[in-house]
């Protein structure tokens, strides 16, 4: 291999590495920064001259202790987990049968209704939150976690139906016909055949719904005022700030603790979400 070829490849390699380092650095930096701030002593944190990249004083667990001991952080985590679980259940209960019957619906109606449902996903919370707050108040759910339990499925169900339709479409109808010939009812075939095959699709819906609950901000902010009933995504920015004072150490620790598990979970199922987003544009 001559020098020319090697030089050309070396330059391409260097560019490749540069691009990766630059973007990874830019995108992951805030989280790295959260880690540092979460463990830095306040004196170190708030002294402007100190090099922020290293621990000028030994790291401390004070912020974590404050977070878990003296704030409602744990309560928020609990609220979010509870709401997440219930919303996942509701979503599965409603979206799975809907997706199945829409897929099996003969004629163009199945497709059309499916697209219609998907389009409702495009109606954002920031459009509906004002009248929704009134609806929630009228139903008496204001300031409780049940307000979001009611409303979140409107966001999870459309996308989940769309995701699941993609899955169910790939199961050949002959499989169910064979099962029914063997004696199962259509519902029995659905339960015993289709559901087990679609486990990965259903899992995707579970993860998607759960992460949506954790990511949501507007509705939770609008419907829930009391600190003890709030979700973690809203509790942290709103209630960890006393007046105008930001407790950055605890704040960063909170962000870290709340973000990472969700990130790991979401990451595992990313490819399936993308398939849903791309609306079958990739064949």
């Amino acid at each position, binding site marked *: *291999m*001559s020098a*020319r*070829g090697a030089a050309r490849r070396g330059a391409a390699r260097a560019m490749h590495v540069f691009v990766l380092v630059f973007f990874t650095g830019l995108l992951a930096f805030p989280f790295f920064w959260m880690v540092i701030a979460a463990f830095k002593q306040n004196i170190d944190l708030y002294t402007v001259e100190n090099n922020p990249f290293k621990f000028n004083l030994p790291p401390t667990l004070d912020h974590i202790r404050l977070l878990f001991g003296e704030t409602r952080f744990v309560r928020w985590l609990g609220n979010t987990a509870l709401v997440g679980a219930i919303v996942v259940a509701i979503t599965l209960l409603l979206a799975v049968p809907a997706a199945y019957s829409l897929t099996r619906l003969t004629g163009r109606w199945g497709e059309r209704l499916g697209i219609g449902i998907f389009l409702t996903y495009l109606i954002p919370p920031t459009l509906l939150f004002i009248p929704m707050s009134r609806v929630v108040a009228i139903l008496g759910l204001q300031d409780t976690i049940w307000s979001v339990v009611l409303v979140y499925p409107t966001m999870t169900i459309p996308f989940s139906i769309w995701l699941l339709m993609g899955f169910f479409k790939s199961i050949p109808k002959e499989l169910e016909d064979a099962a029914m010939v063997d004696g199962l009812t259509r519902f029995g075939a659905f339960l015993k055949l289709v559901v087990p095959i679609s486990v990965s699709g259903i899992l995707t819906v579970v993860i998607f719904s759960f992460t949506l609950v954790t990511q949501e901000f507007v509705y939770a902010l609008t419907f829930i005022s009391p600190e003890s009933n709030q979700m973690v995504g809203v509790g942290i920015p709103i209630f960890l700030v006393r007046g105008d004072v930001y407790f950055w150490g605890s704040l960063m620790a909170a962000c870290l603790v709340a973000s990472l598990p969700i990130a790991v979970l979401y990451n595992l199922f990313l490819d399936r979400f993308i398939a849903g987003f791309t609306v079958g544009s990739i064949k």
Partner: protein
Amino acid sequence: MAIVETRKLTKVFKEGELGAVNDVSLATEEGEFLVFLGPSGSGKTTLLRMIAGLEIPTSGEILIGGQVVNDLTPRERRIAMVFQSYALYPHLTVYKNIAFPLKAQKVPKEEHRGKVEWAAGLLGIGKLLDRKPRELSGGERQRVALARAIVRQPAVFLLDEPLSNLDAKLRASARQELEEFQGQIGTTMIYVTHDQVEAMAMGDRIVVMNFGRVHQIGSPAEVYGDPADTFVATFLGSPPMNLVQAGDLIVGFRPENFFPVARLAGQAALPADIRIQERQGPFVPLRFRISHEEYLGADRITYGLLEGDRFDGTKVISRLPAGQSASLPSGSLHAFAVAESDLRFFDTRTQVKSAAKPYPWA
């Protein structure tokens, strides 16, 4: 027009494992139609892609027109390639597809139309210039791919199994068109295929490959009539050459050279009569017990076992023109023979052609 040469070319994909291409040295002749023939995984496509510049060799050299091209990018090598899937640009019209190489090589725009129409005319697709690839049939797409390849007048043409995506009927006529095409333009062509019929029909010479190694390079007559080893002997020809174990040697003879000696009822001219007149020299008698036969219209293929102390139980095949043979009942025993000049010998241990002859022959 140029000669393509490889010197000890090797490609290893995974360290420690056998290379996809091992130590291949060959050279084309000017303007010839050279075929790389071999089963899947034989390395023929990898070899082609290295010549194209799409794979980087692990070691060895590639020369085009006498110049070492290892470090040249594909576009610097002045080659053209037709892929198995044709790789037409789906969002461009046929015209734009053919014009793309001209654009890429910065040929002045005024010259585009002339050259595109020349290439399209050569392949008879002048009427399709405004269509998109998805509106074309398989055969038409192949012609567009060829037009796109020829429009820059490359030094070498590389083709990677371009006929395998066509259905059987189309394949024969497409094959004929390709042969005529190459004859017309006279550019050196390297053609990869796993189909030995294609190789025999189209190639000036055939490079027979397996497991990344070249087994034999020769004209169709050479690789068919004088195979270098048992792999070549059995890969070419359908049904494959009969191989019979004889101690240190393997004896081979082709099904069409294996025929009955006694005149059978209802036959006009005996194949034996014809062949004995054609060949000089002794014949080897063999006793053949029939198991079953296939009647293919023009040919009759008879399957059975040899009987006799030396080769007892070996499965052999006979292939004769249907008009010159008779249907033989299953289970019957017959006297067959092979001309000694039709025998080929291979060393049992190395599987390679051997000069020795088993003695005594009985």
